[in-house]
């Protein structure tokens, strides 16, 4: 089974990935957890979700807006946000809105050109699972994500902001 890095309680660990990434050309397997493209989910997601027999995830590309998922979010187990290049920062906004605006509690997975140098930003925006593209280990990921003792702005993590530390 393929592995990915999952983050829980500030610790990154290897975890088995139970989800199968189904491309738009593939047939959806009979059983098992799947991640579909947003386009495919919009066409076939309802049927899969109502069968209630497996978990369903959606892969959202960086030029797609997560708002279209708003209605289905409570039933979606994973939102995989794609980084076509590490420089493409749109998924940070998508992740933050999922957590902050839509109160999404499922897994937000970073896929694509995912590098350990971005770990801190990703964690702060609400990502909690990662498919690193640079061979990063969970140890490296934890280290990269916790490099800074202080933060200057509110985000999704529960780190106290500098002004809150000052006031306390």
């Amino acid at each position: 089974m393929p592995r990915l890095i999952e983050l829980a309680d500030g610790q990154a660990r290897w975890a088995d990935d139970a989800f199968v990434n189904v491309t738009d050309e593939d047939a959806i397997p009979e059983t098992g957890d799947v991640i579909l493209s947003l386009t495919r989910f919009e066409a076939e997601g309802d049927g899969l979700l109502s069968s209630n027999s497996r978990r369903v995830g959606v892969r959202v590309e960086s030029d797609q807006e997560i708002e279209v998922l708003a209605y289905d979010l409570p039933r979606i187990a994973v939102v995989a946000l794609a980084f076509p290049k590490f420089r493409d920062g749109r998924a940070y906004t998508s992740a933050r809105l999922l957590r902050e605006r839509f109160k999404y509690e499922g897994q937000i997975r970073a896929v694509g050109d995912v590098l350990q140098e971005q770990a801190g930003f990703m964690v702060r925006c609400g990502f909690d699972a990662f498919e690193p593209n640079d061979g990063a280990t969970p140890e490296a990921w934890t280290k990269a994500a916790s490099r800074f003792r202080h933060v200057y702005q509110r985000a999704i993590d529960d780190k106290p902001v500098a002004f809150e530390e000052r006031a306390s």
Partner: protein
Amino acid sequence: MYQYDLIDKEFLADRSAEFRGQVARRLAGELTEDQFKPLRLMNGLYLQLHAYMLRVAIPYGSLNAAQARRLAEIARDYDKGYGHFTTRQNIQFNWIKLKDAPEILDKLAEVDLHAIQTSGNCIRNTTSDPYAGATAEEVDDPRVWAEVIRQWSTLHPEFSYLPRKFKIAITASAKDRTAAKVHDIGLLMRQGRDGQLGFEVIVGGGQGRTPYVGPTIKQFLPTDRLLSYLEAVLRVYNRHGRRDNIYKARIKILVAALGAEEFGRQVEQEWAKIDAARADLPAAEYARIRAAFAATPFETLPARSEAFELAKTKDSAFARFVRNNVKAHKQPGYAIVEVSLKAADQTPGDASAHQLEVVADLAERYGFNDLRVTHVQNLVLPHIKLDDLPTVFATLQAAGLATANIDLISDIIACPGLDYCALANARAIPIAQDIARQFADPDRAETIGELKIKISGCINACGHHHVAHIGILGVDKKGEEFYQLSLGGSGAEDAAIGKILGPALPADRVATAVDQLVGAYLNVRADGERFLDTYRRVGLEPFKEAVYAQAD
């Protein structure tokens, strides 16, 4: 001045440690140059024509003496003895060795300086008024808001991989010394009729290959809503700015494509969804930051200083310096002193280690330990007693820092150009020096009056040529350096993009052409008109004729 507390200091230490690790991995061959490039850029380290260049942030252009001395030390120990101030109030060191970079960042961090976000597609250092806290014109101290933005934008998790770089300028005076209208966001502080403070928000100005004077998208934003509104603007840009073409990725292209009204509507829509209680700062933090910029402890002095008046009558060089470089202060008995880095034969914006130390000493001894950098690449001692001005002048003069040319024809902005920069098509520095030589007579320069010349070595326009009274753009014509002149631009409150005068000229024709333009201006100017005013009244034709007529 804002003093870094333990939190700010630990933040810089963590950043320094992170970069030290990255450089070690690069030097050990664990990272390729391709992988390392984005990491070094986020720490202000560029690979230029001859060496690495390190750009150090000077937050809103404000320095104390210890910081200026440390910059001098770095210039001396790691560079060739000088630093170069940029058009965004930062400083660049042009001859840095990669292995030294972590040590330099550590030394900077010791005096609360850093290179965070001086490069990369993120929110850069905020430009602010170098006269902040000293000019009577301002409705508030813009440094308070610049510091609010500094903290909020530092390693912002959502906005560190924007489509392109993002620059904010803020001014609280009617006279704009920040080029706010050609920034990605320009914040102009206003006082409402009820006395409430707010910002006029301009979005989508810019230079480069598609210059725009930015449109106003919000007339009055209450100050305490600043951060939530910035968040809305940045979010709309992060999601919808173009990422397919680096030349169309700045926010100005998005604003122009949507139209200012539609862009503003999208921002309002996003803003309405943001939870203000989470996004805007609590009042206590605003108050804490404001207290850090508490009023300077000025003495109560008479408005007139006998020592100052006497020195003016006895020393004509001092009198000239006062006419051009000394500006009105809000406090009686004090003055704002501009220190020109544009002496003849100098590289515009360069300061030697010794000069930095001289200015640091003056700031400490006579100027409340306060020193500023201007976007015009000069320095400012914002609070000098009139009584002390003759001594300060003499000290500056001895260090080659008393050139009396602020806003005059030889106060030229120039980018590093082909002498240093990997992007340039042509040199900028020698052209600036040619022009300074052509107008070396200070009486003539004063007769000509305010004339802003700005030179860029390529279309990226780091030398602000689009917003110059006379703009000069270096172009490459079959391997030869040529220069295209434009007239009538302005980066100030009367912002405008200049118009191209005619065919590009070879390097040895540029200074003469400027002389011909000045001749045409002096022929037709009305009383009290600046070059820019005359141009706006008479148009391009008389100037075109002056430069090109004989050549035909």
